[in-house]
């Protein structure tokens, strides 16, 4: 049987395995779940079995890890996955009203996906940006100090080019791309 993850991501997988002692390869289950999610769009049975084979784990154990953590998708989502924080500090800065307006604009319920498969929106717990609420992560990229006008512009941009959801909002350098020297 072929292992799609090993075939396509050998270098990344080896890198993650190299971080942990030889007899502790199970530590790589979380990074490998991210790789499976990237490859399949969500953590499906094929991804779970690929990981189980690579790490010599039981597929059930891999599935239990995927189920415990909220950042692994158990089913397909929209192209842009919106995580809106509505915890107390954000709520004090209007995040709940912002999220209600966003859901109305998208014509979906909390956790739902738009008909065109473009957006999935979910409320989440604190994301560590309380001073810049309302805020969200779009495909895990921070977008802060939002209102619906900014949001409509962003969504129009993402509809044109879904990869734009991964670009920084302010046009400046992002932490992930910054030079280290």
């Amino acid at each position, binding site marked *: 049987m072929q292992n799609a993850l090993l075939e396509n991501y050998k270098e990344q997988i080896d890198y993650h395995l190299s971080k942990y002692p030889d007899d502790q390869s199970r530590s790589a289950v979380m990074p490998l779940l991210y790789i499976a999610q990237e490859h399949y769009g969500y953590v499906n049975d094929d991804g779970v079995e690929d990981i189980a084979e690579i790490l010599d784990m039981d597929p059930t154990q891999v599935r239990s*890890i995927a189920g*415990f953590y909220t950042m692994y998708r158990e089913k397909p989502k929209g192209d842009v996955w919106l995580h809106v924080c509505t915890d107390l500090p954000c709520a004090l*800065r209007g995040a709940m009203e912002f999220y209600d307006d966003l*859901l109305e604009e998208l014509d979906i319920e909390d956790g739902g996906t738009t008909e065109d498969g473009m957006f999935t929106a979910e*409320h989440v717990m*604190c994301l560590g940006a309380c001073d810049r609420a309302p805020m969200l992560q779009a495909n895990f990229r*921070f977008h802060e100090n939002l209102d619906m006008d900014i949001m409509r512009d962003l969504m129009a941009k993402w509809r044109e080019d879904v990869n734009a959801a991964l670009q920084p909002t302010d046009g400046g350098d992002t932490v992930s791309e910054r*030079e280290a020297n």
Partner: protein
Amino acid sequence: MTQNILLRGREIPDIHKYDVYVENGGFDALKTTLGMSQKEVIDTVKASNLRGRGGAGFPTGVKWSFIPQNEPIKYVAVNADESEPGTFKDREIMETNPYQLIEGSLICAWAIKAPAVYIYLRGEYWEIAEQLDRCIEKCRAEGLIGEDIQGSGWDCEVYTHLGAGAYICGEESALLNSLEGKLGQPRVRPPFPAQKGGGLYAEPTVVNNVETLANVPFIINEGPEAFKAVGTEKSSGTKIFCVSGDVAKPGNYELPLGATVRELLEEHVGGPKEGREFKALLPSGASGPIVPLTDEVLDTEMTYEAFAEMGTVLGSASFILLDDTRDIVWAASKMTKFFKHESCGKCTPCREGTYWLDKVLDRVIAGKATQRDVDNIYDIAGNMTGTTLCALGAFAANPVLATIENFPDEFEAYANQRAIEATDEADAEAEPAPAGD
């Protein structure tokens, strides 16, 4: 007066770059440390009186001294799983000054002669992890990470590891389980992480918060006395106060421990929003008991001891402010929903207790509570305290208990509503769906 030991990125542009960091004294402390014995390093950190900045305030040097030096393998795990509502300090430290954290972590690793450091970041901070990975590569190229660091004969690797959305992984033993590829659930202690059998891969392990370790280069460079000169006798150094909620200027503020709440809120944060007054303070995110923001509280020194005396905790110093327009019972309900969501499910009192507290609070807010519900709250909350493997159970009982204790009128107004007929407003408050949970 603000004093930036940790938030130096605000004064030194581009300190996230290696050359800039080195020009400003970066890695001097590590090089000094490599000329010291393990005991000397630990004694220096002990003498500085640095206490853990993650929330518990445990003396850092003492924690390091628990590691049995004769064990061949020990680890450092950096807790960058910042997830407490209202906390965003570690994010700024790592974004603006990543090398300071790496340097602090390496000094800790030298102090216990660890061959590896794992920086466990919450999954949502993956961009920061990518930056740290590049910084680690740079350090490797400069001979600061890897084999025979600076000719010391000591090998040490530094790795990042991403979580995936679980508050509980900020609890140190759950963090270690998560690093091992297991469910992020707390462990039975003893053995403690510093002991053989209790740490990462059962090896003795120091688990320190990002902000804690970011203090260490300063302590080595300037000496423990210079660190102790800032702050108070028992709470030394500076602390980053994350201020959010109903304030004029939310953000991170670095102040000496011992500064008053008034100084922080009036001189730096700019007070409440225009035309409003402060009503309540949550000093440690969702976990610490809420207190009314009285003059007495405003004049309290921000130290671990003074806040404990006040009946609350300084914890991670994540100050969430509520003004006079806010409903404290609603806030308690929000926080209870947070803990219900984040309970890892391992211990019955917490798993079931958070569920029932949330359910009863919904009834209270809907104006349907009876005396029996109030009795139930005390019963459930009582069963959650001191009966679980980690502190989440007790933390989860705090929002509702502190509301009843410190804002009895507001709570009673809801509890008595049954007799006076629920208002439309209360109904609306009771069902904040879909965004509520």
